[in-house]
């Protein structure tokens, strides 16, 4: 493939928008891609699968200790019981934060991420700065997201090199005794399930609800 890396060719299409458009029409014309199937894929990951799934698991685990035990013991089955199954979630692992240990997830080689429970990864998760620094300087990376941890807290960075997919079970925020599962779910951000932030505090939720932010 002599032109494989040649970005200097002058003949159109030269820019990524045109290249992708050309590829799509070519694949559809050749019958290699079914147009409806393509829409189904995009729709699924843009609108149906997302971090609300993971937040459901986390809030349920905070609320129900039996479920939490199941979630830690066999995460793939526990997620499947709530209907969260499929691609990039075949082998889930849930890692629990404690007062003395904080977990953070990265994929230094590509962008492995638990799609079934978090959807597609955010741009920063796939970026070179995050992938390079999360393993070697996790504290400065956390600080960049406004997350400060005590020096005594052990940070465990999980580098997803295999098909195991890691989800962080964040610490349940204080001041949430007696909260319902639905209330708790509002505290579970996507970022807290990657481990780059902590779960929201009740005060943060109140601010958001009152539109002060």
């Amino acid at each position, binding site marked *: 493939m002599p032109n494989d890396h040649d970005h200097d060719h002058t003949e159109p299409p030269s820019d990524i928008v045109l290249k992708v458009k050309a590829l799509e029409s070519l694949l559809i014309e050749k019958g*290699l*891609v079914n147009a409806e199937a393509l829409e189904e894929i995009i729709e699924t990951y843009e609108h149906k699968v997302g971090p609300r799934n993971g937040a459901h698991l986390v809030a349920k685990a905070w609320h129900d200790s039996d479920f939490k035990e199941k979630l830690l013991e066999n995460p793939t089955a526990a997620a499947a019981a709530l209907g969260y199954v499929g691609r990039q979630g075949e082998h889930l692992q849930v890692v629990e934060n404690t007062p003395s240990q904080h977990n953070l997830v990265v994929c230094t080689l590509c962008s492995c991420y638990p799609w079934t429970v978090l959807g597609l990864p955010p741009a920063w998760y796939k970026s070179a700065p995050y992938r390079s620094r999360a393993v070697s300087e996790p504290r400065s990376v956390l600080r960049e997201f406004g997350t400060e941890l005590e020096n005594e807290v052990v940070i465990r960075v999980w580098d997803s090199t295999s098909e195991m997919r890691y989800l962080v079970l964040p610490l349940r925020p204080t001041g949430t005794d007696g909260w319902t599962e639905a209330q708790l779910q509002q505290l579970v951000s996507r970022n807290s399930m990657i481990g780059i932030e902590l779960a929201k505090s009740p005060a943060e939720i109140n601010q958001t609800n009152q539109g002060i932010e």
Partner: protein
Amino acid sequence: MQGGHDLGGKQGLGPINPESEAEEPVFHADWERRIFGLTLATGMLGKWNIDQSRYARERQHPINYLENSYYENWYEGVSKLLVEKGLISEAELLSGISQQTVSQEFPVPTREDVKKILSSGGPTEMGLDVGAVFCVGDHVRVIRNFTHGHSRVPTYVQGCVGKIEIHHGGHIFPDKSVEGLVSGEHLYAVRFSGKELWRSDIRNDEVIIDLWEPYLRSSN
């Protein structure tokens, strides 16, 4: 291979500058949406597996890999596979115009097929005839690995000593899978101290990484 993708511990790549969670869209442009869908759709033709797909992105020149945005690398990867597998020609790729029909006959997934494929996924766990060499708690040293092929042992752990944390059982081995072979090896989560990896002063930070048995040697 130690290509542009092997980023763990690399320096000088700058700040992360994350978008806020509340504001970030799933896709930042329509072409990202399309190349994401096209990559998954063509992957479902069964002409290549996930390791071959990763390897297609990795074997770009490192400068291109790092300069490209994430989904530009997806475009590079999928277009390379389509040409290599003979599904499209280089000329067709550049023009976007079909010049020859595909000779092979194979099923192209419909919307209903896609629903099933996405929800069933592709588990990689497999039963193995041979027992695991290592147990939880064993100390292991990671091999130095200079293969030009696809591998999932990042440079930053090579030569370092860690401790087996979890035995995940047998899983498809990427180094063989990239050649189209379904062959399993025992997979372990191995824990390394930050001090071992980076000689850093913060001794209580750790990295846990999944490594297949052929990447490991006993270090008890």
